């Protein structure tokens, strides 16, 4: 059928074609990024429409929200869109401190035990919901009660013990003794305020997300995009939305989001892929926002398993890890090395007594332990690509002190089950929270063993400090208690912190007033076109 020569020739030609095609694209890319002139994307931009349209901002995000309802989910992707359609009683400002949102003013009163546990709050007057109705205390009470019925957000609804209406604009919230977490919880999306009438009517807030927020829901094309339009009667004129239409586009692939931004298809990318960071920073049409996050990531070892019950072994592992290498490989450099057992940037952080990278010190700890490092069994579970890359660096680091670690890959669901039950020796994990108290409670409180306390730490002294901090409303006093806890943790090295990754967003440089805070929050309603 075939003549040999011909078929060989064809093959060669095809090979050459493919090679030249990719070769071309490669060299052209290099040119465009080095010259810093117009990129191929923008020069051939045929979809320039949205970029010049000053009424619209197209936002690209990786994950689709599971739900538009405020209380039925605990997903970051959902939190972002909830901020458009709802307001809470409080919100977190740029420095991640709670500030009043729907609440105009509040006072804290003492109960019969002398504890400051009665919160009297007054609402802004004339706040309008998207359906035209006016906000009253009844809506607050109904919303907070409804949030309590959703197991997904149980963590954020327990601080509110009881609510009580005083008049149409005033109400009381009772907490269990003094509470430092109430205002943070009220800032969480699960406690967003929705109209009582709709809650009573069993409204599906996923299909019809009526709130007081700066944007009204228009349309959701599943898997593709969600459209919003400005809420004309927004209560806070200082923070009223300046851009009329928001298109929330789902682009799961990182490189695709970058390309879409360059070509003007989208104006704002929430999660920017760190691989393209350098070339985007050099692009004058694009602004990059970078901030170290409060998400603390670590190598966890099971403190109940031998020899990780030994402090010297844990300290040896902690000081053997080259965090800079981990960051280069796992995050393409987009992170900061941790210098403490608690997240830097939170109230009460301390780097005192923390074991930084120091191979000699690690070997010293190993000697102090006295056992044979090659007998240590450590299986590091990695549940995604980033963790796997971090794990590979750690594996190489531990070899230096004689520990042969093994890496195993697991999907998220299995990993969560296995680690919560304590059936592991090690894994790479992390924890994100907006304040130090909830961080410590989640990660180290002994009552959370078999749940989120995965090192299985049971330290009564630490428990006492955490519980004390939770009851301390005064910020300065709380800081002291938390600092004590941080240092105690550094001394004990229950786990091996690695990095706090950067939150990286990027947008068309025409967009003004953008920021991201350390917990990833951003305020669409404050944006405007230059």
């Amino acid at each position, binding site marked *: *059928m075939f003549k040999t020569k011909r078929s060989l020739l064809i093959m060669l030609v095809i090979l050459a074609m493919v090679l030249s095609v990719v070769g071309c694209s490669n060299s052209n890319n290099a040119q465009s990024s080095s010259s810093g002139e117009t990129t*191929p994307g923008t020069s051939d931009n045929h979809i320039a429409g949205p970029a010049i349209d000053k009424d619209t901002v197209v936002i690209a995000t990786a994950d689709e929200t599971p739900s538009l309802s405020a209380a039925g989910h605990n997903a970051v992707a959902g939190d972002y869109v909830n901020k458009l359609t709802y307001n809470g009683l409080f919100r977190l400002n740029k420095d991640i401190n709670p500030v009043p949102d729907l609440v105009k003013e509040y006072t804290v009163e003492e109960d019969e035990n002398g504890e400051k546990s009665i919160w009297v709050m007054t609402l802004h007057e004339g706040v309008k919901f998207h359906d035209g109705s006016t906000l009253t205390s009844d809506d607050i009470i109904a919303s907070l009660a409804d949030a309590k019925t959703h197991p997904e957000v149980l963590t954020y609804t327990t601080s509110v013990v009881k609510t009580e209406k005083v008049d149409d604009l005033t109400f009381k919230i009772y907490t269990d003794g003094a509470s430092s977490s109430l205002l943070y919880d009220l800032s969480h999306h699960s406690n967003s305020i929705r109209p009582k009438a709709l809650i009573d009517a069993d409204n599906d807030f996923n299909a019809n997300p009526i709130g007081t927020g700066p944007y009204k829901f228009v349309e959701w094309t599943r898997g593709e995009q969600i459209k919003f339009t400005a809420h004309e009667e927004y209560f806070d004129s200082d923070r009223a939305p300046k851009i009329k239409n928001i298109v929330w586009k789902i682009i799961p692939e990182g490189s695709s989001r970058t390309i879409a931004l360059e070509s003007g298809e989208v104006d704002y990318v929430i999660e920017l892929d760190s691989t393209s960071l350098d070339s985007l920073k050099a692009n004058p049409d694009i602004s990059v926002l970078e901030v170290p996050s409060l998400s603390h990531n670590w190598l966890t070892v099971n403190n109940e398993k031998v020899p990780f019950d030994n402090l010297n072994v844990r300290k040896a592992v902690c000081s053997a890890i080259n965090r800079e290498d981990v960051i280069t490989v796992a995050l393409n450099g987009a992170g900061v090395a941790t210098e403490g057992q608690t997240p830097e940037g939170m109230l009460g952080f301390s780097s005192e007594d923390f074991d930084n990278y120091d191979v000699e010190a690690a070997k010293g700890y190993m000697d102090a332990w006295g056992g044979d490092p090659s007998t240590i069994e450590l299986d590091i579970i990695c549940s995604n690509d980033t963790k796997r890359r971090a794990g590979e660096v750690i594996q190489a680091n531990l070899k230096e002190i004689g520990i042969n670690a093994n890496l195993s890959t697991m999907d998220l669901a*299995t990993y*969560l*089950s296995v680690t919560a039950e304590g059936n592991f020796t090690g894994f790479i994990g992390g924890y994100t929270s907006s304040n130090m108290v909830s961080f410590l409670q989640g990660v180290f409180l002994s009552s959370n063993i078999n749940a989120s306390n995965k090192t299985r730490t049971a330290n009564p002294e630490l428990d006492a400090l955490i519980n004390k901090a939770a009851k301390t409303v005064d910020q300065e006093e709380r800081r002291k208690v938390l600092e004590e806890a941080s240092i105690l943790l550094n001394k004990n090295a229950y786990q091996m912190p690695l990095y706090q990754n950067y939150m990286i967003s990027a947008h068309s440089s025409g967009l003004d007033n953008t920021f991201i805070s350390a917990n990833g929050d951003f305020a669409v309603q404050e944006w405007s076109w230059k």
Partner: protein
Amino acid sequence: MWKYIGKRIVYLIPVVIGVTFMVFLIMNMAPGDPVKSILGEQASPEAIEELREELGLNDNILIQYKNYFLGLIKGDMGISYKSKVGVAEEIGARLPTTAKLSVIAIAIAISLSIPLGIIAAVKQNTWIDSLTMFVALLGVSVPVFWLGLMLLLFFSLKLGWFPVSGAANWKSFILPGIALGFLSMASIARVTRSSMLEVIRQDYIRTARSKGVPYNTIIRKHALKNALIPTITVAGLQIGTLLGGSVLTETVFGLPGIGRLMIQSIQGRDLPMVLGCIIVFTVAFSIVNLIVDIIYAFVDPRIKSQYT
């Protein structure tokens, strides 16, 4: 004839029951608690227990299947663990995307492969034949996701002709359609060629030729009609490959179709959603096969006579 069709439809029922039961069992063997993946790392044990109860996960597996199946008969595919929305509703929203992708892919495949197959047959044993058949073979050999990446790299990134992700307009479907269609094009072209060759050798063609009918007319009027019967069959069977390939294609091009929904649901252990996707795929596959068989029965007198 109707008897035949009726028999085929009835026959579909045990297959669907078997598939759902099998998939239900397999998915329930999965390690990892779906509830934990819904609630995430920071969930408390009470929250987990409460949600387990709410989702009916504490029941016996057979009872769970019975409840699921009874719902399925009524068209209720359950509620997604993750979004709390009806599975049928969610799949319904994604169905047009996958359908559009498949139709465009098969249209591209057929419109390219049939002419290619015919040319190859007519020019049998020439370099044209060799080249077309080589391209066809290349088509079945290229991984669809890699072809997709290469198309994306060249046409979207370098030339900027097409959007990189999503299904905003018709342009979004061109590259995925080509990537997915290329695979089927190859198989169809090959079958067209060989059935064409078989027909050309038949007596009546030779007779027509000897009578002096122009060659092109013979191909167009006589050979083509008969040669296309096996082609239809293969084109229909390609739907199965297409559905499998759509999972990868939708992932590469960020198309919000059922394939991508399925992968996302697998990662999130969203069992009802995964089941729903597989059932939809299976039913679609079976229906297409059924239609192909029926068409075949109409054109093939042997099957026709059996049932009339």
